[in-house]
């Protein structure tokens, strides 16, 4: 036991003496959360659009005013002919062009029907779709105004309630996600170089010859980083709550425990990576290149997992971040307790044990 404590202490010294890395390990997650919390959103605001009004009548002008008044759009160009459309799309100046047909107003009066073409640059399909939807709803509202005095029978009116996030703030979705991704990457990266560094420096042999059991070496290596990562996690949660006003509807204590669990899972993954790598370079490249994109893309952080093709949905199950995001969102935004997230917690525990188990086994092999 004393040997173990001594070993852990050595690991602590390693870490705290490398001031530059330490600064990065703490400073960076904080900087990133702040940046992303404020900057990352997929709400559409002030999108640049252009108008091609071939009618130029009272009605079209009214509608254009409504659109200009919307916070979603910013009219930056008025074009006169259709042939200009291609050029402004190619230059990337606007995301959409609204084209009012000839005699728009007259058509509406005479035939009770008029069209507005919404030409969108659909290279970004999501943006294009959203723009279409917004324009459509602005037009529908205008239409309703016109039809105010006309009795339209039998209307089922949906009254929508947005649960957990009444104002549809994208921070609610992104901040837990950013938290998870950053914790995972920092933790896995920290430990992934820990073992390979010993290998490269040659001090690994000393450890192998020592009476420390393989199990103790592995745990000993993970331990100091738990401490560091917990500090990171606490700061991140505090930032989420106080700077971004993400509510914590559930138990803060439970959130804390689950965070520690997730941290241990990530650290264990890092250790596993380092037992599989021959050099520091390889270990780092795997944790960065190998973990980063899958974690961002498959964890449900940005893209909903249920919309992905089935094989990818299956693969997403092995990404620890996926489970933790469910847990964090559940506790913070839904206010649920351990009963609801038991399955996810159990999965994380299993993953941790698996990672540590394999690491110990690989380490043992070296002994033989």
């Amino acid at each position, binding site marked *: 036991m004393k040997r173990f404590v001594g070993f852990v202490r050595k690991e602590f010294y390693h870490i705290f003496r490398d001031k530059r890395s330490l600064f990065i390990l703490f400073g960076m997650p904080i900087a990133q959360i702040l*940046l992303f919390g404020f900057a990352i959103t997929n709400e559409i605001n002030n999108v640049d659009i252009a108008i091609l009004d071939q009618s130029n009548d009272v009605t079209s002008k009214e509608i254009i005013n409504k659109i200009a008044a919307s916070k979603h759009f910013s009219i930056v160009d008025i074009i006169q002919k259709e042939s200009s459309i291609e050029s402004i799309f190619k230059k*990337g100046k606007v995301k959409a062009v609204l084209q009012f047909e000839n005699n728009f107003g007259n058509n509406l009066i005479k035939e009770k029907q008029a069209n507005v073409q919404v030409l969108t640059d*659909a290279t970004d399909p999501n943006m294009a779709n959203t723009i279409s939807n917004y324009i459509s709803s602005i037009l529908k509202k*205008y239409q309703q105004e*016109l039809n105010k005095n006309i009795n339209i029978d039998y209307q089922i009116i949906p009254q929508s309630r947005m649960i957990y996030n009444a104002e549809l703030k994208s921070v609610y979705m992104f901040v837990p996600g950013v938290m998870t991704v950053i914790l995972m990457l920092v933790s896995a990266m920290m430990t992934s170089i820990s073992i390979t560094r010993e290998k490269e420096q040659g001090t690994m042999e000393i450890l192998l010859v020592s009476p420390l059991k393989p199990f103790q070496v592995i745990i000993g290596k993970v331990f100091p980083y738990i401490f560091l990562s917990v500090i990171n996690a606490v700061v991140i949660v505090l930032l989420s709550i106080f700077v971004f006003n993400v509510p914590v509807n559930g138990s803060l204590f439970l959130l804390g425990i689950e965070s520690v669990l997730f941290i241990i899972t990530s650290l264990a993954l890092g250790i596993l990576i380092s037992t599989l790598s021959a050099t520091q*370079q390889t270990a780092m*490249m795997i944790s960065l290149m190998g973990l980063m994109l899958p974690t961002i893309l*498959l964890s449900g952080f940005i*893209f909903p997992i249920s919309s992905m093709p089935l094989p990818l949905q299956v693969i997403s199950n092995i990404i620890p971040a996926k489970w933790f995001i469910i847990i964090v969102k559940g506790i913070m935004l839904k206010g649920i307790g351990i009963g609801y997230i038991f399955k996810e917690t159990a999965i994380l525990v299993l993953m941790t044990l698996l990672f540590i188990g394999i690491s110990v086994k690989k380490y043992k092999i070296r002994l033989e």
Partner: protein
Amino acid sequence: MNIILYIIRKEFKQIFRNKGMLPIIFILPVLQLVILSNAATYEIKNIQFGYVDTDNSSISRGLIEQFEASTYFNVSERFSSEKEASQAMQEGTIDAYLNIPVHFERDLQKDKTNAIGVFIDAIDGSAAGVINVYITQIIQGYNNNIAMDLIQISDTVQQPNSIDSIPLFWYNQTLNYKTFMVPGILVLLVTMITLFLSGMNIVREKEIGTLEQINVTPIKKHHFIIGKLFPFWMLGMGLLTIGLILAKVIFNTPMLGNLGLLYVYTSVYILVILGMGLFISNFTDTQQQAMFIAWFFIVIFILMSGLFTPIESMPKWAQILTEFNPIKYFVEIIRMVMLKGSGFTDIFPLAIKTLAYAILMNGLAVWSYKKTT
């Protein structure tokens, strides 16, 4: 000049001899491009949908049938009470539910209008917005149907006004998200590989001591740097090529523009990244530090590049920051050139900024590399 060739040759030999790294440099990016691009989609599908129907009338059943028929919704369960439905939402088994109150049909026929409760899990705000639109559309469509069934043709029937918006989707009629994401992910992969490799490379020589040996030789520092970075430049271009081929073959990504233009731009872009890697390695002593710093920048660059979330939606100060994000330029340009067929004049403003960035970055890097300390 020959000296540069000696260095280039050595670097290539070392890269290809590093058996552990080869799969990471070549196979991993390719795998990720092919597999992960399929994950990227904002389409909302498989919406888990439940309902409470205490009315059980033909109208309410008809409405539910609409949802069952819709490809967006999976009508999973009928709940006996709102409490049960709300519970299910807590558990995460449903994304949205409808609450049809008792006497619904009767009140509708009496008052000509009636409200229905729609409850949507809005943690993902934008998804909730989309779900709401879908639900509204289905209900709207149903409204028109029942109006036709139930209405007695009355004499005072007035034709309502109808303004329709006709969406036309340029460059991507099928709204295929992969078309949008694949070029972007390719940019990411090329950037990551070149930044990490170049950042670590010189630090590694520092760590093992061979850098000192080099500094004692009369080699000019710009020869050394060019020789060191050139192989990674080649790697980046090679990866781009492989990526473009895969994009075409597997994802059928359009390539409307001039590929030559893309290559020329990429060659300048990679210089920016290499310059960054070199700059980082001049200020770090260990590979670990170099990687951490590179990681810090890459994560910020990736998430702020307009790859996953639009730059236009960011607050003004963030948009200004993105001016310093090289990935932003490449992502935009590759999309413009490949998907829209933009030409040289179209991308000129972005390209010239990249060039300036390349000159600045490499200048800084070369200047900060000291053979004598």
